[in-house]
């Protein structure tokens, strides 16, 4: 898998690793309790409060640090559950074919077409006090369909490959065929689908917190923005309140997308942007001609 680790993947993984680290140690290294109020109201970033304070004197830097955990926990848990679901449904549908395939495909298409965010909003609003894990569960229940569809398509094409047919002809049992012949070839796509689902989950949980549907006592980056919006931070020009949280979201999202691009390029080598070192300009439809006396080395 040497070529899987190109520049993009490494960059993405490092940023991601940084955030995971913050999520793990955040609540220990945070200088203040994020919910603790103080008398330093609406102060700009300073040496005592690196990201400034809120309207009730809470330290925003601590909020961002602690908030990382909320975001990442939901993101990764939802991603894991949704990916497990999509593998289960997608691969089974692709492999079994026939009526099972029709039913499972119809099911995933329904969940794909129905707008996810409004559905999540409604379901969560019916639940009185939704904690992180419950939200992760709701998100994964709506977000598995995309991956399932892709996996089904891949499984369909793999199923017809010769080596699978050969294994089947030697009498290997169905579940063994799925696990040992088909799955190893799906790893790249499963990884890509996992990353995509995590992106979706992260954005969803932040949105839910921002609107105020998810419990606002658990700190995550969306909650920070919720309070900022509530206190009219914009109108008051308190840019330090909402910029760090948003930047973190964007950075995490970019990191995940980079990882996905890296995986994409590994799967489909043609997508690689021409790495530097190509002195001759390639042009589709016209092979370049080098003509030097003396030929080539």
């Amino acid at each position, binding site marked *: 898998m040497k070529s899987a680790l190109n520049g993009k993947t490494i960059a993405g993984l490092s940023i991601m690793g940084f955030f995971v680290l913050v999520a793990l140690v955040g609540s220990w290294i945070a200088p203040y309790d994020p919910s603790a109020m103080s008398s330093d109201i609406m102060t700009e970033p300073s040496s005592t409060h690196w990201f400034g304070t809120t309207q009730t004197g809470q330290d925003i830097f601590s909020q961002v640090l602690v908030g990382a955990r909320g975001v990442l926990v939901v993101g990764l848990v939802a991603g894991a559950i949704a990916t497990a679901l999509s593998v289960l449904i997608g691969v089974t549908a692709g492999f079994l074919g026939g009526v099972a395939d029709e039913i499972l495909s119809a099911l995933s298409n329904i969940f794909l077409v129905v707008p996810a965010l409004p559905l999540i909003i409604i379901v969560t609003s019916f639940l009185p006090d939704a904690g992180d894990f419950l939200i992760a569960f709701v998100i994964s229940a709506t977000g598995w369909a995309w991956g399932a569809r892709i996996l089904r398509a891949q499984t369909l094409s793999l199923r017809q490959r010769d080596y699978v047919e050969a294994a089947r002809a030697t009498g290997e049992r169905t579940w063994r065929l799925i696990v040992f012949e088909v799955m190893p070839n799906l790893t790249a796509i499963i990884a890509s689908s996992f990353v995509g689902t995590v992106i979706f989950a992260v954005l969803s949980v932040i949105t839910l917190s921002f609107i105020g549907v998810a419990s606002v006592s658990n700190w995550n980056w969306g909650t920070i923005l919720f309070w900022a919006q509530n206190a009219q931070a914009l109108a008051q020009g308190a840019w330090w309140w909402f910029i760090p949280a948003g930047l973190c979201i964007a950075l995490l999202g970019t990191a995940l997308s*980079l990882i996905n691009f890296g995986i994409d390029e590994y799967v489909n080598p043609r997508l690689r942007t021409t790495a530097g070192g190509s002195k001759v300009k390639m042009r589709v439809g016209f092979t370049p001609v080098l003509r030097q006396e003396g030929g080539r080395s």
Partner: protein
Amino acid sequence: MRFLLRRALFYLVTAWAAITINFMLPRFLPGDPVQAMIARFQGRLSTDAIASLYVLFGLDTKTSMFDQYITYWGNLFKGDLGLSFTYFPTPVSEVIAQSIPWTLALMGVTTIISFVLGTMIGVYAGWKRGSWIDALLPITTFFSAIPYFWLGLIAISVFAVGWGAFPAAGGYEPGLVPSFDWEFISSALYYSVLPALTVLISSIAGWILGMRNMMVTVSSEDYVTVAHAKGLPERRVMLGYAARNAVLPSISGFALSLGFIVGGTLLVEMVFSYPGIGYVLFTGVNAKDYPLMQGIFLIITMAVLVANLLADVVYLMLDPRTRKAA
């Protein structure tokens, strides 16, 4: 044709599923929002209103679940989505009818522009490999990772609060009455610039990337080589042979991601207090206005299904392989 019929059938099934989910939600999730509301509005509710609320929330223990289901469907066909809590006593359907034109006008138009523009840029980016466009990709990726609403917040703080060039909230100048005169329309346009730009910038990256990747894949197909070998002008090969084939997955991708797009545009409306259906949903969530939320969910779902059907029609027109052989 068979393709279209199959798709239409699928959409009907999905619609049925969405309606049923909507029906089931208040009955299966904990929490008892309705009693509080009924208690609050006791004196002002007509018996019909109370009856329809009972149906909506399954409080009528005298009738069976199945009968309630039938009545629910009956109400739907009459256009009765219940009464809104926050805009009491306005019926939900009226609230939605007032706000949906704003959403369609702004978000609908912007989404389509973003798709078309993004796809065209993607065609060029994919065709001319190794050009300066490739260097833009990391930037566009960053922009696509930004949540729509945060970009909206930034836009507001920079352009509205900081610079004062554009209004920070609302759909039109407060005090104006909606009508079809120039004063109102120009005001509406002015107020829509920031939200539109926010949606455009956030979403265009995805289309560019998707189309670029497809163009790259298609450019190495045999029929493109044949087109070059035939000595056709480059524009013809790029558009008629490569782009024409590469755009097909984008169209089905567009249809499928409509649900996601809708989510994003809702948020933009919330941030800008733009009087569309997203903003109404926002107020509904905060006030725990369940009839309103459910009604909006239904309408949004139906709209997405219709859009999907339209996308399928377009796909049918573009890809002859989906039409059965004569």
